[in-house]
């Protein structure tokens, strides 16, 4: 499979990602409910293949300020993952976790709380991926960036850019009182792509 590209990805792989999205969101919902001690519901996650030119149509456009948490992954699969939410949603989650302790501005404690929440959410997806493929996936410590959506998304887009002109992402919706619209982007490197497909019993 020399000319692998996300454009040519089989619909079967697409379905698998959707399933990982479902299980991952389910795991994340349970974990969040426990952590935040409230009822949390989830919507059906959507797997989207987004052209670079369409990134502006995502949520509030390229200049929408968002919080992105980025982790490198190692183990059987190498690459990176990112979890992305709007800034106000991030603040909502932080307030839920910290309660009265937050000053409602993005200080060190708030950032650290958001990293912790993102760890739980990305961990839930990675567990789903890991148990479906039987591959070990080890995430690095998370790094947080609050900036324009376009600028944050340029990081996984560049990684996808080596394969094609589109980016694959899982859009998930979790609700407590507000809708927590989040994006989950996973970019395995070329070798890992083959490993994932092989582990899932697909022809490489």
């Amino acid at each position, binding site marked *: 499979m*020399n000319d692998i590209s996300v454009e040519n990805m089989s619909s079967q792989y697409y379905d698998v990602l959707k399933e990982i999205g479902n299980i991952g969101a389910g795991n994340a919902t349970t974990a969040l409910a426990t952590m935040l001690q409230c009822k949390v519901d989830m919507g059906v996650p959507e797997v989207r293949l987004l052209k670079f030119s369409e990134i502006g149509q995502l949520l509030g456009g*390229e200049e929408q300020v968002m919080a992105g948490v*980025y982790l490198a992954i190692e183990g059987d699969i190498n690459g990176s993952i990112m979890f992305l939410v709007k800034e106000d949603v991030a603040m909502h989650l932080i307030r839920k976790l910290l309660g009265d302790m937050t000053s409602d501005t993005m200080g060190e404690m708030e950032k650290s709380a958001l990293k912790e929440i993102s760890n739980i959410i990305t961990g839930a997806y990675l567990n789903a991926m890991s148990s479906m493929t039987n591959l070990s996936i080890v995430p690095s410590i998370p790094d947080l960036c609050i900036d324009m959506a376009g*600028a944050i998304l340029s990081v996984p887009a560049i990684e996808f850019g080596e394969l094609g002109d589109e980016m694959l992402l899982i859009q998930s919706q979790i609700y407590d009182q507000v809708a927590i619209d989040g994006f989950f982007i996973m970019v395995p490197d070329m070798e890992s792509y083959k490993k994932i497909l092989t582990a899932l019993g697909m022809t490489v």
Partner: protein
Amino acid sequence: MEIKVGMADLNVCSGSDSITTLGLGSCVGVVLWDPKNKVCGMAHVMLPDSTSIRNNTNVAKFADSGIDELLRRVLAKGAKRQNLVAKIAGGAKMFSIQNKTDLISIGERNVEASKKKLKELNIPLKASDTGETYGRTVTFYPETGQYHIKRVGKELKII
């Protein structure tokens, strides 16, 4: 009129129009400008080198092939080769974590590759605002040659 350039895309404009790209991160916004004829073009470059990647049909995506194509387009729009100058912005490092295989951040590599290509083409680099850790929305005005750089929570910068 304001002309928008998307990610891994390029375009040209002239006169009182302006050209913009929103939310540049590790990518680089390369501008070629002919001050006499008020013609300019902008490329949103994502990766440094088209020759190191198999899937390289989108020429605008790479610093080398993107700037070549940008040059062709501004000349077609009425710019004169000998008048051309360049300004660049972007190439930020959005996260401190990076792939073990990349010793130098991709933003920095994009900036270096753009500078190298401009040098090869003998186009003088008049101004640049690169690196750092924040995103930039950039707009170029061919009438004045001003390159406006907007950042979240910071004042407007003009180079």
